[in-house]
């Protein structure tokens, strides 16, 4: 019997709404990193497809099916939401508790992120299912577009407070503008 209390990374920090932009925590139950060993990418992809219905996503893409998802997470590495067994094919590490995951949504969401993220997130080039490893302020993050006006952002768990703080400042700055 589990006698320890589970606390989410953004507990006490969210929800937050400023102007037309909202910030919510995304609670992730099970998430692993998958780094295929040399020459095993195809085998890993096939195994994943078999086990959770989604194979390895192309670079800079995230794919989801049912409750499972596979997100490109960097050079030779993916994040997989779901239960997988890839013994001998890939290095798998538990990342379920390692990331603060938030969803930011609203009409001015691109304007808010443009204050913090040094990459082009405009809808024409960064479509739903596109993901990027980049920065938010001084933090290393993964950003995925999950909707027309919605993004999911992952930052290190220990930086959850800073993540929310930075986004809140940007949200307030954008909301204060009279020309938006």
């Amino acid at each position, binding site marked *: 019997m589990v*006698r320890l209390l589970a606390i989410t990374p953004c507990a006490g920090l969210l929800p937050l709404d400023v102007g037309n932009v909202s910030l919510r925590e995304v609670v992730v139950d099970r998430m692993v990193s998958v780094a295929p060993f040399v020459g095993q990418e195809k085998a890993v992809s096939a195994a994943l497809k078999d086990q959770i219905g989604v194979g390895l996503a192309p670079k800079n893409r995230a794919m989801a099916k049912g409750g499972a998802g596979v997100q490109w997470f960097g050079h030779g590495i993916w994040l997989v939401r779901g239960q997988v067994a890839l013994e001998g094919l890939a290095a798998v590490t*538990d*990342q379920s508790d390692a*990331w603060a995951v938030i969803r930011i949504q609203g009409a001015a969401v691109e304007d808010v992120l443009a204050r913090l993220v040094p990459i*082009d997130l405009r809808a024409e080039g960064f479509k739903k299912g596109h993901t990027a490893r980049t920065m938010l302020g001084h933090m290393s993050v993964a950003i995925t577009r999950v909707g027309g006006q919605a993004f999911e952002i992952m930052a290190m768990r*220990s930086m959850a407070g800073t993540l929310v703080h*930075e986004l809140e400042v940007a949200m307030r*700055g954008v909301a*204060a503008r009279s020309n938006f």
Partner: protein
Amino acid sequence: MRLRTPEHMVTFTFDGKPVQGIPGEPVAAALLAHGQKLVARSFKYHRPRGIMSAGSEEQNALVTVGRGAQTEPNVRATILEVSEGLEVFSQNAWPSLKYDMMAVNDLIAPFLGAGFYYKTFMWPKAFWEKLYEPVIRRAAGLGGLSGQTNPDQYEKAFGFCDILIVGAGPAGLMAARTAGRAGADVVLADEDTAMGGRLLREVEEVDGTAGTEWVATVLDELAAMDNVRLMTRTTVTGAYDQGTYAALERVVGKDGPLECFWRIVAKRTILCAGALERPIAFPNNERPGIMMASAVRSYVNRWGVAPGKAVTIFGNNDDAHRTAHDLVAAGVKVAALIDSRDDVEATGDFPIYTGARVVATKGRHALEAITVSHDGGTRDIRTDCLAMSGGWNPTVHLTCHMNGRPAWREDIASFVPTPDSIPGMVAAGACNGTFSTAACLNEGAQVAAEVAGGLGLEPRVTVPAAEDRTYRIMPLWAVPGKGRKWIDFQNDVHVKDIKLAAQENFRSVEHMKRYTTQGMAPDQGKSSNVVALAVLADATGRGIPETGTTTFRPPYVPVPIAAMGAGSQGKGFAPERLTTSHKVTVAQAAPMIEAGLWYRPSYFPKPGETHWRQSCDREVGFVRNAVGVCDVSTLGKIDIQGPDAAALLDFVYANTFSTLKRGKVRYGLMLREDGHVMDDGTTARLGDQHFVMTTTTAAAGLVMRHLEFVLQVLRPDLDARVMSVTEQWAQFAVAGPKARALLNTVLDREITNDDWPFMACGPVGVAGVAGRLFRISFSGEHAYEVAVPARFGESLFRLLVTQAEMLGGGAYGMEALNVLRIEKGFITHAEIHGRTTALDIGMDRMVSLKKDCVGQAASRRPGLLDEDREQLVGLKPVGAVKQLTAGAHLFEQRAEAVRANGQGYVTSVCYSPTLQTNLGLAFLKGGRARHGEVVQMVDHLRGITAQVTVCDPVFFDPDGGRARG
């Protein structure tokens, strides 16, 4: 005087006195309407100055806005927008703008010429810092900072587009329309409050309608395009590598940022920055009321304000005439038109003097009269406003930001951009030396079509009809006569200063600039540059092209540091990394200290403890006598898997890991390739092809980068993968004789010394949660580190501390942790600080010679094997002075404490409650052979000298029995 009756006025103050203005108009327009001619005192001579321009190039009308912490100095009144309650102050004047005591500088002006500082304040040298500089700074200056923390908000932002168009005058609007219609993703940026450029300020027709109407139509069309973004109040300030541009936006809004500093990345850029009118250097050409002719037209045509009651105009080109006609049309009296050219036909219902010059001006605080030299004689004319035009300088600045040099064009007597000075940028319109409206419209459209075509689009060009006058100019730089002929109004540089520079052989334009300070003020010589170098060219007998220009550098307009650094103040300076036990720890009033980005507790104070040492000593006692709990989650944890995982470890660690048995932990020493120690830590073998490495807190990022470097750069042949799991696991040290007793209250299955011996590791159930247990010790005691997924971290920490307290122990912080490790002679980055080798710290035998590893080859360099190197030793005080200090130096007992006699230095010190003495770790020359010797420790900084005995660095439990028990 206002020419139109405004619908709505608000009140702001200038030097405390109320002034009426139209919301959004420039403060300069409101001051002119109010009849306020005198608005500033000049930089050096404190000369009375008035408004000179109607744009960001303003040299004179610098004002201070706001008060207290929100004071903002050196704001240009020509772009500052009027709003209700705005507080504007003149600067560089005392006690008042009208009666400025420092105007005495003007009386001794003959002594204050160019190079005055360099020549006068040569000696005594010590006076410079204490006397001369403070006095000069006070006398000659701009507005002052409040000295308080600025509470205003600033922002920065990143923008991306296909085509960035800089400037929204006729060329920029046509470029935007052409590119926008073709489907390009366009950003159109303009520094004004409204787009349109000169079309908002001139009386002329475009496409058969008023210029302002045409602008409105185009803007409506652009605003309706999703692929075009219009950025008003946005000055593009710099051009940088790979199509990156900086831009400063003045933000409109309530309770939001004042300014936003943009980094805009553009595939292509069209520069449509227009041109700036330049002054003529005639005697006393800077009295309040003398301004640029184009500015006069801006105030009359756009803002409906007459800058004077009887205006005179002096120019060397047709714009002088245009100004006269606009004034007449607006109902303002033109007292005279003075054209320096002989061969012009001029008409108008006002006195016209051709081939004439203004040779003198009168009026202390405002212009009263001018003297015109004409037809062999002179004539005095009463006037309160003189509009001058020395011609136009294309705004080439951005094209020079990557070392481009502009080219001289004789026909327009100006510099124009050299093509391809900035990769991806093309100039169009007035900034390219194309001056008529029709030509600007056409060039904007044509250039945009070429640029859009180059991006694979299919643009179509249609150009509206507009006026197409020829720009006729006869260069006129300086007019001889009695009195100073000002060139750089903002830095108080006049013709004689430049001639003096030439005479003293500062003939290079860059030397002249430094010697005279011409072009060094906030406006960076926007208006004065070409006149100054024309005067220099004349004085040195060279042409203008040979003389060249000084270098235009970013930013084009002043950018507040607060805007550039936006988001990096306060909490934005660096991310805060908080452990899962943070909240509980802070609730116990533990002072937090930074370790890298992490926050860790120094100690946990208990009621009655008044000094940190009391808490620290108590916490050390917990670990030595009972059990202590410490959050060690901040240590880097790197998961290593793969067929070559062991080989990777053998390559990155000096010692061998392939021999480590599953379920065991080994201490590892990591070297840099140059043979010095990089980091240390323990690595556990969880499976045949699975390890978890720990790093020190501060070096976690460094080691991760290093491992990726090894795998991708040095040894891509190794099939191994590394992934940080630092954040995944909350990990706590449980240390002390009762550590196992404590753990057995929380573990799902009890452990014994047999199944969990020293350096064992493996999976365990922790209060029903799948965790990991490592029997390792950084205190020398019987100790463990227990890890659970981070979501359970806070809960486990509470549980462990509660259990520890029941066993006579409790939580301990960094101070106690440091004492415990010093007592054991364990090293941290205080010792492995980047200049120490394995030999220095006594671990040279760990460097395996049976295999290759990073740093092994270089660690065998003769210099690194020298027996006389500084080696790690322990120190204990033996004299009257007991205090030891980190950073102190070591000397032989009777040697003078000077650098030449240095024998080493102290790296870590503590008071050991266990041994009841101060302890130190130090590096001492040949130290391992000197145990027992007494040396002197000298801390020159704090003035402490202590006699210390050299000993083994392991002070406590040298055989390590306690950790194994």
